[in-house]
C-alpha cells in the first residue's frame, strides 16, 4: 500500500498521522516549516484554553506519537508543488530547497491550517507603528517567557486592554466570519496576566462574548476570581496620548451609549484567523472548491465534515474554517479513518 499523505504538521495533521500509523497505514507527513506543531509551536503559545494547560503539555504527547513512530515518514521544510489524480490516490511532487521527488500516495489529508490575521491591515489600531499595540501571538510569547512588559520602554504596564474581533466579523477587511478563538484566548490571556500580576488592570472590549459550550466557565471565572473587566463596545481607533507615552483607545461604550477615550499602557488585538497560505495553495493544487471566505469546503459539511467529495481527498482542522485545538484533533482522527478506508479499498 502506498503511503497516505498528510499535508500539514499542526494539531490536525499530527493527529491524523498518529491515527493512520496506529491503524497500520504507512504515512507520509509533509510540513513546509522546519518543525512540527503548527501555529501553537510557531508562536510559542503559552497556556492553552480552556483548561489552561501549558501548550507543551498538550502538544507534547501529540508530537511524540508522531516523532517516534516507525511507519511515519516525516518530511520537514518540504512542500507539495504538483498533484495529479491517479486511478488510486495521487501522484505528488515534493520539493525541498535543493531537491524534488515524485511520490505515489494512496490518499491525501489536507491539514493546511490557518494564518493569524495580519493586524496591520486594520490600520486604525496602529499595529506595527505603535510598539505597545500587540497582537495575540506576541502576548502568547510574552506569557510564555513570563515577562509582561511594554515593548516601548520595558516597564510593566498598569492597564491593558484587549480588543476582540480584529480582522473578524468585518467586511471592511473582507473577513465576515467569527474566529471562534478570539474571545476565549483573550480572556485566557487576561486571566493569566491577572494571576501573575494582580496589580495590572485588564479590560476586554467586546461586541459579543463567544465562549461557547463549557468554555463559558472561563468567562465567568475571569470576572469572579480574577477581576477582569468587560466593556461592551468596540474601540474604533488607537492613537498616542500627548507626550507619546500612553495609548488612547477611542471607542463607544454601547451600554452607556457614549463615546469614550481611555488611556492604556498596552493594547492587545485579538487578531482573527484566515485561510493559511498552505490552504490556499493546496486548494489550487488539488482543485478543491473554496467558499467565498477562502476556506476549503467539505462536500457535506454537517454529515461528513472531513470529506472533500473528491476521490481520496480529506480535510482536517482549520483549513475548513476557524477551529480550536480539540476540534482540530478530532477532525484529524476522522480524516485518518476516512483516508484509511479509501486507501484500503
Amino acid at each position, binding site marked *: 500500500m502506498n503511503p497516505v499523505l498528510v499535508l500539514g504538521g499542526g494539531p490536525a495533521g499530527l493527529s491524523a498521522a498518529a491515527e493512520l500509523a496506529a491503524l497500520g497505514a504507512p504515512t507520509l507527513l509533509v510540513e513546509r516549516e522546519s518543525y512540527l506543531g503548527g501555529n501553537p509551536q510557531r508562536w510559542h503559545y503559552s497556556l492553552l484554553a480552556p483548561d489552561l494547560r501549558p501548550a507543551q503539555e498538550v502538544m507534547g504527547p501529540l508530537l511524540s506519537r508522531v516523532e517516534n513512530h516507525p511507519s511515519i515518514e516525516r518530511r520537514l521544510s518540504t512542500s507539495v508543488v504538483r498533484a495529479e489524480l491517479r486511478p488510486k490516490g495521487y501522484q505528488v511532487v515534493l520539493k525541498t530547497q535543493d531537491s524534488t521527488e515524485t511520490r505515489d500516495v494512496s490518499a491525501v489529508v489536507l491539514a493546511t491550517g490557518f494564518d493569524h490575521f495580519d493586524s*496591520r491591515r486594520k490600520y486604525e489600531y496602529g499595529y506595527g507603528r505603535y510598539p505597545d499595540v500587540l497582537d495575540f501571538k506576541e502576548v502568547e510569547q510574552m506569557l510564555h517567557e513570563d515577562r509582561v512588559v511594554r515593548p516601548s520602554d520595558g516597564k510593566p504596564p498598569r492597564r491593558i486592554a484587549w480588543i476582540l474581533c480584529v480582522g473578524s466579523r468585518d*467586511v471592511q477587511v*473582507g*473577513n465576515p466570519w467569527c474566529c471562534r478563538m478570539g474571545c476565549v484566548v483573550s480572556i485566557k490571556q487576561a486571566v493569566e496576566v491577572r494571576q501573575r500580576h494582580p496589580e495590572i488592570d485588564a479590560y476586554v472590549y467586546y461586541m459579543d462574548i463567544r465562549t461557547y459550550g463549557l468554555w463559558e466557565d472561563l468567562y465567568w471565572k475571569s470576572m469572579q476570581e480574577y477581576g477582569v473587566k468587560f466593556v461592551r463596545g468596540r474601540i474604533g481607533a488607537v492613537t498616542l496620548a*500627548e507626550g507619546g507615552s500612553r495609548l*488612547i483607545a477611542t471607542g463607544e461604550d454601547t451600554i452607556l451609549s457614549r463615546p469614550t477615550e481611555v488611556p492604556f499602557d498596552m493594547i492587545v488585538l485579538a487578531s482573527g484567523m484566515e485561510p493559511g497560505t498552505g490552504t490556499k495553495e493546496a486548494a489550487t493544487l488539488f482543485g478543491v472548491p473554496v467558499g467565498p*471566505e477562502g476556506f476549503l469546503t467539505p462536500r457535506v459539511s454537517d454529515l461528513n465534515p472531513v470529506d472533500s467529495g473528491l476521490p481520496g481527498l480529506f480535510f482536517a482542522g482549520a483549513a475548513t474554517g476557524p477551529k480550536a485545538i480539540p476540534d482540530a484533533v478530532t477532525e484529524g482522527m476522522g480524516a485518518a479513518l476516512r483516508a484509511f478506508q479509501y486507501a484500503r479499498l
Partner: protein
Amino acid sequence: MLSANEIRKVVEERNVHQRGTGKKVLDVREEMYHLEEKGELIVHRIRPENRPVELRTLFGWTKRIPTDRLWHHKSCGQCGNIPGYPSSLLWLMNETGRTYLNEPHQTSCTAWNYHGTATSNPVALAAVAARNFHRAYETDHFPLIHCGTSYGDYKEMRKLLVENAAVRTKVREVLRKMGRDLVLPEEIVHYSEWVHAMRPEIVARQKHPVHGVVTTVHEPCHYYKMVPEDAVYDDAVYAGQRPAVPSGILLALGATVADYSTWYDCCGFGFRHILSEREFSRSFANLRKIRPMVEEAHSDVAITSDTGCVTTLDKSQWIGKSHGLSYLLPVLSDVQFAALSLGAHPYKIAQVHWHSASAEGLLSKMGIDWRSAKAEFQEYLRALKNGAAPELLHPAHGEIEKFFAINKGQVLPDPEVVPALSAGSATTEGGPAA
C-alpha cells in the same frame, strides 16, 4: 510597515472578499461601457491628447489621470473665500504647459447644499452632475474636479446612474430637454490626483526648498471615505495605508510630513455646522485637529486638499484666542503650497491674504521674501483701483459667454451624438496671458 507586494495582496484580497461577501463593490467603470454599447449613455474617454498617467486605487485598480486639456470643475467654497486655491492650480497648469478651460458654464455639484440641508434629491444631484459632465464633453476637455465633496458626490452619482435604470432614464430625459445627453467621464478625477500624477514636472520647477518645513496633512473625508475603492493610494506614501494625496506632493517637494493622532478625524466643517453651528466647527477644528497638529507634530503648516477643510481649519483659529487656543497654524491647500515653493507670487497667485491664520511666518521659513511681494501687491491694488486692467492667468471671456454656453469650433469626439458647432474665434484655452 508592509512591503509593496504585501499591500497589493491586501487590496486585492479586500476586493475579492468584498465582492464575495455581499458588499456591493463592483467596478462601475466596466458596467459603464456595457451601457454605452446599449446606447444608454456616452463615455467621455481620456484620449492621448489628455496625456494620461496611471495611478493605483485602494483596491489595486488602475486609474488613468488625464494631465492635459482639462475642464476645470470649480468649487464654490474655494472660489468664494479661498480664491488662491483655484488660482494656484491654474498657475501650476500654466507653468507646466497644460491647457484647460475655465468657464462660466458650470454649476457647483450642489452637494454642499445637499449634505447641509437635504433640499435636493439623488435624481437632481445626478442631473446636475450629468449636466456638468456633458458640458465638459461637448468642449472636448476632460473634467477635473476641484472639490473633495464634488468628487465624492460625482462618484456616488456615477454609481447611481450606472446601477439604477430608473434614475438614468429620468436624468437622460431632463438633459434631452436642454439639448444635452447623458455623459459619464471615464474617470472621476480629483485635482489632487492630477497633482500627484504631475509630481515630477512640478518638482522639476521648484525654486524654494522646503526641507525644514514640517507639514501635517488633513485627509479630506469626502476624498477617501466616500466610494473609497476609487481613491488613489501609493506604496510610497504611508506604505499604502493612507491615501497618497495630498501627502505625495509634499514628500516629493522635500517637506516633512508629520503624523498626528487624529489624522483620520473630520475637520468639523459639517456642511451646515460651518454656517449655523459654528461653535461646533470651531471646537472640533481647534481641539481635534489644530491642537494635535501643533502640540504632537510641531507642525509649521496644515495642508489639505479640499474646500471645506481649508475653510474650517483656517477660519476657526482666529476666535480660538478667546478660548485660550492661540495656535494660528497656517492652513493651505496642497496646490498653494506647491505653487509657493515654485515661486508663485504669494498674494497675486496664492492669495494668502484671504486666510485667517497668517501664512507669512511660513513664507519666511520657505525663504520667500513676502515683504517686497506684499508691497508689490499693495501697489497692484492701487493700480486696479485707478482702473488698470487686472493680470490674468488666461484670456478673459467675451460678453456673449455671460449668456450662452457656446462652443467655439471645438472638434467633438462624436459628431453623430453632439453635432459639431461652426468654427469660431479664440477659445479660452489656458496658457500664460499675454
